[in-house]
């Protein structure tokens, strides 16, 4: 798998190596219409493969002013610009570097792309020594911001998935995600974005979800799942939408509503909620307005993140629910966990979340008032509130992929594992240095899940795929579980390419399969309408 990847950088210095924007790696520019929806500046038709990016005349001034503003607003940026000692601990931690060998994908160097300009423009030493000439600049690692440098920023800031793996190993906790976030904010100031981020942002803003599914279509999809579930279990579930007075609001990424295998996870949620409703009178509603858990604004700017995220609390308030339950998603949870309350709180119109079934008080969410579905379900299982038949998942040998954001921006490690171990009998961990806080990114997070950058995506997905391949060969693992909608889309493609014997599932698809619904007919099929183990010969009717 790794043949042909050279991790030795060339003897020529990185500042003397101009950027070469490659097809298969770079993403297409944003559709100007999408930028206009959210009133972003300098929306225009341009291409990164052109020589002329049609920058606004005063682009340098805009970037410089934007940089200054961000230094003054974020201590993280200021400190991270100043204190890196270039020890190299992060160098081989990035999945893009491991998968591509491109030295500018070493996290330290990605940051140096910006730091070099910072030293030149914002430090006293840089200004004094820099004034002596270009060679002196080079000695202190400073350089002027030119169009080539800007292109280099753009190229490499969209080769970072903001996964924070480097930050775990950095002795000062320097977080490349922070640097990439800031860098992308700067690029957005002059209309440089990629379409796979800008269009979902525009869709989320207008219709509430990144695929632009309109309210009736959203309901149609869930109706369609309802039919499927009835066919498989004999039980008709009844999800409700935009219902005022419900106790709990449920928000999940829209990817689960529209793309396999996320759809099976969505069916899992529906089965679970129905079960809880029948058994314990559980009262939950879906929303078509806040129908996107994921937040592509996070990959754009702090402001855009806030604008999209605002819908969650707004909808909770309008419907008058007590608290919010969140589905399986990675960066959605980074935003909820580390940003939402600060940006759009305080949520004083909600109540401290209490499980209506077990009475458990989710003290860890007492301010934000939003609970992760695996926290909620782990608690149910612990209190013996779910009737499960894990043998229905016996044909699966499961391993678990920790999402970057839930592991390194939250610490959700045991909850999903506890759920998985209770709904299936065969669970195997990948090697220790590739899971938990050291987990590898799926390879296409932070809005890089486009089609035109497939080469980059497969390179970035390689370290994760390699670890999956290891447990596949050692234990016969055939199912990769995850708690992230982007993972489900990305890993499916990456597995198909690197380890085709392994499929991808959400945790709640397995929950849905194992859960014994009151009044269900004998199950012969799983949620994918494939025969259950031992039922291969049974009539699927």
């Amino acid at each position: 798998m790794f043949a042909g990847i050279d991790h030795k950088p060339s003897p020529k210095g990185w500042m003397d190596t101009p950027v070469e924007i490659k097809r298969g790696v770079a993403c297409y520019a944003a559709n100007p219409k999408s930028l206009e929806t959210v009133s972003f500046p300098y929306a225009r038709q341009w291409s990164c493969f052109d020589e002329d990016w049609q920058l606004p005349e005063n682009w340098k001034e805009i970037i410089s002013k934007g940089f200054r503003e961000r230094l003054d607003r974020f201590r993280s940026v200021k400190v991270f610009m100043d204190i890196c000692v270039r020890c190299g601990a992060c160098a081989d931690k990035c999945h893009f570097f491991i998968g591509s060998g491109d030295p500018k994908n070493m996290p330290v160097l990605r940051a140096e792309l910006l730091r070099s300009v910072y030293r030149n423009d914002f430090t006293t030493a840089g200004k004094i020594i820099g004034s002596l000439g270009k060679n002196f600049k080079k000695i202190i690692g400073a350089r002027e911001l030119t169009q080539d440098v800007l292109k280099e920023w753009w190229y490499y800031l969209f080769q970072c998935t903001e996964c924070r793996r480097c930050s775990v190993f950095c002795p000062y906790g320097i977080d490349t995600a922070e640097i990439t976030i800031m860098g992308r904010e700067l690029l957005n100031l002059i209309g440089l974005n990629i379409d796979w981020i800008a269009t979902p942002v525009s869709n989320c803003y207008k219709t509430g979800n990144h695929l632009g599914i309109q309210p009736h279509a959203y309901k149609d999809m869930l109706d369609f799942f309802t039919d499927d579930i009835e066919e498989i279990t004999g039980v008709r579930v009844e999800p409700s939408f935009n219902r005022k007075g419900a106790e709990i609001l449920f928000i999940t990424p829209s990817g689960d509503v529209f793309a396999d295998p996320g759809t099976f996870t969505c069916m899992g949620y529906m089965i679970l909620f129905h079960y809880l409703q029948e058994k314990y009178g559980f009262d939950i509603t879906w929303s078509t307005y806040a129908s996107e858990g994921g937040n592509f604004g996070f990959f754009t700017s702090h402001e855009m993140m806030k604008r999209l995220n605002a819908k969650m609390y707004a909808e909770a308030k309008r419907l008058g629910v007590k608290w919010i339950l969140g589905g399986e998603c990675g960066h959605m949870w980074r935003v909820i966990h580390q940003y939402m309350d600060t940006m759009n709180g305080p949520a004083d119109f909600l109540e401290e979340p209490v499980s209506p079934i077990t009475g458990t008080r989710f003290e860890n969410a007492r301010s934000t008032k939003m609970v992760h579905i695996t926290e909620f379900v782990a608690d149910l299982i612990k209190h013996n509130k779910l009737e499960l038949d894990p043998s229905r998942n016996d044909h699966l040998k499961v391993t678990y992929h920790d999402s970057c954001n839930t592991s390194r921006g939250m610490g959700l490690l045991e909850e999903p594992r506890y759920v998985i171990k209770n709904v299936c009998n065969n669970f195997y961990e990948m090697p220790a240095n590739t899971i938990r806080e050291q987990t590898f990114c799926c390879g296409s997070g932070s809005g890089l899940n486009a089609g035109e950058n497939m080469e980059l995506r497969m390179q970035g997905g390689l370290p994760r795929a390699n670890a999956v391949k290891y447990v596949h060969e050692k234990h016969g693992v055939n199912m990769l579980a995850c708690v992230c909608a982007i993972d489900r889309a990305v890993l499916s493609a990456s597995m198909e390419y690197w380890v085709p014997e392994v499929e991808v599932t959400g945790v709640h698809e397995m929950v849905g399969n194992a859960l014994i619904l009151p009044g269900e007919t004998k199950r012969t099929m799983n949620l994918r309408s494939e025969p259950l183990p031992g039922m291969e010969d049974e009539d699927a009717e």
Partner: protein
Amino acid sequence: MNISYMYSLIAVIVLFVLAYVGVQLPGGEVFFGIIIPYLALILFILGFINRVIDWARSPVPFRIPTTCGQQKTLPWIKPASIDNPSTTGGVIVRMILEVVFLRSLFRNTKCELKAGTKISYEWEKWLWLFSLAFHWAFFVVLFRHLRFFTEPVPASLQILEKLDGFLQIGVPGLMLSGAVLLAAVTLLFLRRIWISKVRYISLASDYFPLFLIFGIAFTGILMRYFTKVDIVGVKTFTMSLVTFSPHITEGIGSIFYVHLFFVSVLLAYFPFSKLMHLGGIFMSPTRNLANNSRAKRHVNPWNYPVKIHTYDAYEDEFREKMIEAGLPVEKMIEPGMAAEPEEEEKE
């Protein structure tokens, strides 16, 4: 040839010559022995404070710790209370481990291709070990030098010296810290040159402090073990500095002034360089915050209202389709209803 380290090496050699020759000129001793050290110290203190204040002036708008273990959630799930602290106490322990034992570097792995096709991420302890040895040795050496600035010498210092010299080799007895410092600096330098990835990212400003500290340790060792500097004379001089009644003691020798000059340069250079990681580590928001952002609201001082797409605007756009699909709506369709209202400004 790598210009980054050549420039740095040349710079340190020039500094050496400057002090070595300069001190023999008329007034040289006063300049290198009194004026420069005082100036350097002032620059260090003011520069350091200025930098820290500058960092502190930028707020921490979001609570963004890098979580390196299980969060605190359900009572029966054991949290990683240090690597993912939920309390201030946990943060303090995390910071102590980070500052005193370089916790994160201890985690370091090395990604290696085996036989060109298999990849492994093995535990890599050398960077951690060299760095730890370097920082600890530097600290002990620094602490030991308080002997030159205190009268009488505190007991704690004498105990440390006993420990440091426990090998009891040679006369004067070998101090382990000095030897370790020199070795660690050398190893950190060699690592920078040998590992191609680290060489690629290294700047002149990464080599310069290494050479300078090498020079400091080297001249120190030279004086103690080889040229056998007049230690009583040195102490008379350093005590005069620390009591702000500076006067030159004759016959200490040029090497001492080189040593002092190197230290002065290091002090003056410190606040303007990466060496400020000494202060920065304490201010890193990914390490010094508790992961309790869902339990306790973190306030962003510059949080400002933003334009959002409100539910009303959304319903106005889709009302007909929503009613048709049986979705509840706030307003039913009335004849002559206004077109899309303006989006609201909302915090």
